[in-house]
């Protein structure tokens, strides 16, 4: 690459397709330092989940708008598939040489498919060895995605004139972000809890290896539904109220004190808290179970801290609930992101950097390993 003369490399555009919003970010590496080149986000139309027939058209329109906003360079993109279109399953296989693992995983995956099921694309993470009784087995996180959906996705990208470098999933993108924040050389245990609109994701990894990943069906949409039920509002209006209150609560306390709150605001805040509190505790309990599973399965040490990311991660009370339940320090994305990343970031990225973790991880595909090779 010609840009390598200054150790400068432009990363592909990372596109995080969420059910509530689409985020795109492009990073570049300059002398082993990561910087944000462009970032933009746009809200998705209501009620267009990936299963909806108008989903790809909605994504296409949103992406076209979003790419016009940001000063993105090039047409190469790494797209994160929505979590709901990827099926995750943990498999335990007999121990075998690494070269034989892909074929064995594919064979095993075909055994689990229903006869009338649509064709799927298969990927997996090699989580490592686990002890099952007296046996040592190979833990594999199997991922399948519908081939027609992927084909439709590729056609949509082609209509936008984009060149997909990869279609990824949340775990690898989040793992890459975590590595970028902590430094790619670090081999310590990393736990990321990414709270989105449709799902929350619990990721446990070490180095670049994903050891554990689980989707938890408690996230922003469920909080909206709870608030809507509590406040007797339509779901999307309840969501607006919840998010606005969440933004205000995450402001600098000194700044927040200058704007006096009305009694009705405080009542609304309290009502929202009351509505979502059981769900927050439920989510914290699920996350705690995930860590316990990891501890038992991999006989691993407890993590020193947990990184909290995702668009819904600044929900008031969430970090406290997690810290209380798990007993580990919880750092939000704003604290976890390095200043270099947030320095050149756009306003939206600076306001809520944790929401961009997956998009940044997507943009970072290959960049970390390149930076590590250069440093070596």
């Amino acid at each position, binding site marked *: 690459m010609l840009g390598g003369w200054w150790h400068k490399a432009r990363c592909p555009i990372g596109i995080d397709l969420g059910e509530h919003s689409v985020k795109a970010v492009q990073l570049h590496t300059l002398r082993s330092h990561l910087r944000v080149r462009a970032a933009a986000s746009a809200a998705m139309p209501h009620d267009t989940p990936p299963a909806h027939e108008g989903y790809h058209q909605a994504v296409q329109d949103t992406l076209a708008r979003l790419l016009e906003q940001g000063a993105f360079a090039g047409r190469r993109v790494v797209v994160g598939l929505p979590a709901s279109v990827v099926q995750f399953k943990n498999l335990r296989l007999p121990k075998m040489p690494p070269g034989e693992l892909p074929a064995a995983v594919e064979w095993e995956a075909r055994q689990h498919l229903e006869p009338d099921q649509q064709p799927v694309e298969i990927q997996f993470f090699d989580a490592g060895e686990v002890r099952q009784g007296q046996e040592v087995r190979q833990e594999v996180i199997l991922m399948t995605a519908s081939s027609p959906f992927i084909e439709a996705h590729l056609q949509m990208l082609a209509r936008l004139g984009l060149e*997909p470098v990869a279609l990824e*999933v949340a775990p690898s993108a989040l793992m890459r972000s975590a590595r970028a924040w902590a430094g790619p050389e670090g081999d310590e245990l990393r736990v990321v809890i990414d709270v989105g609109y449709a799902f929350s994701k619990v990721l446990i990894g070490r180095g670049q290896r994903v050891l554990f990943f689980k989707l938890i069906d408690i996230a922003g949409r469920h909080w909206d539904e709870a608030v809507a039920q509590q406040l007797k509002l339509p779901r999307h209006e309840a969501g607006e109220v919840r998010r606005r209150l969440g933004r205000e609560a995450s402001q600098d306390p000194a700044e927040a004190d200058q704007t006096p709150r009305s009694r009705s605001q405080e009542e609304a805040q309290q009502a929202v808290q009351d509505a979502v509190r059981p769900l927050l505790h439920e989510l914290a309990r699920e996350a705690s179970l995930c860590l316990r599973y990891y501890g038992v399965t991999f006989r691993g040490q407890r993590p020193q801290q947990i990184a909290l990311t995702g668009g819904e991660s600044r929900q008031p009370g969430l970090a406290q609930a997690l810290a209380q339940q798990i007993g580990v320090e919880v750092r939000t994305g704003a604290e976890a992101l390095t200043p270099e990343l947030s320095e050149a970031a756009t306003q939206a990225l600076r306001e809520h950097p944790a929401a961009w973790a997956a998009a940044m991880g997507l943009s970072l595909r290959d960049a970390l390993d390149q930076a590590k090779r250069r440093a070596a």
Partner: protein
Amino acid sequence: MTSHEVNFLPQSYRLRRERFRRRCRQGALAAVMAASLMGWWMIQRGQTAAWRGYAQTLEAEVEAARLQAQGMAKLHDQRRMLIRQLNLQQELAQPVRHTQILLALSQVVPESIVLTWLDMTTQRPAPEPLMPAGAKASSSAGKSNRASGDAPVEDLIRIELAGLAPDDLTVANLLEALKLHPLFTNAKIHFSRNTDIGGVSARQFQIELTVPLGRRFQIAPPVEEEVARAG
């Protein structure tokens, strides 16, 4: 499928993309090759033009040399013509007049000798041979040695003189004086015999000599002038 880097791009899509990239690379390579060939052709064309220019220069030089050769041939012809004219002029206008010969004889012949007969014969000039129209002068030049000048026959005036001398010594002195004189050549005595003229015995003689005309004659100043100039 890899264990760390996930990519759901179907294999068929990757193959398609790889094929497209390969075609792009091949297209780019073909374009580069075409550009190189074009450049090479342009360079060759430039070189061809240079060689053509050089050839034209050489042709011009050859043409100039041919014209020079033609000019030289013309000059040769003119020279030959001029030589012929010169020869003719020399034949028509002799370098020494008969009176000068008579003057030289009068200075050489002593007063004791009486000339009874003097004959001076000049060769008649050979006329220019008649040539058919268009015939080259060079082809006919060999036919007349005098005209061409290749092997010239020496023009000369043949002189025969007869006279009476008192004795052979005088005749011999005369013959010696004629031989030494720069104007005359081939002085030979035909005979010298006794004769009796009115009771007086004398020697009758006849001498033949020639005056070559293929020379330039310069009349020497009189002896008195030379003496005066020396003094």
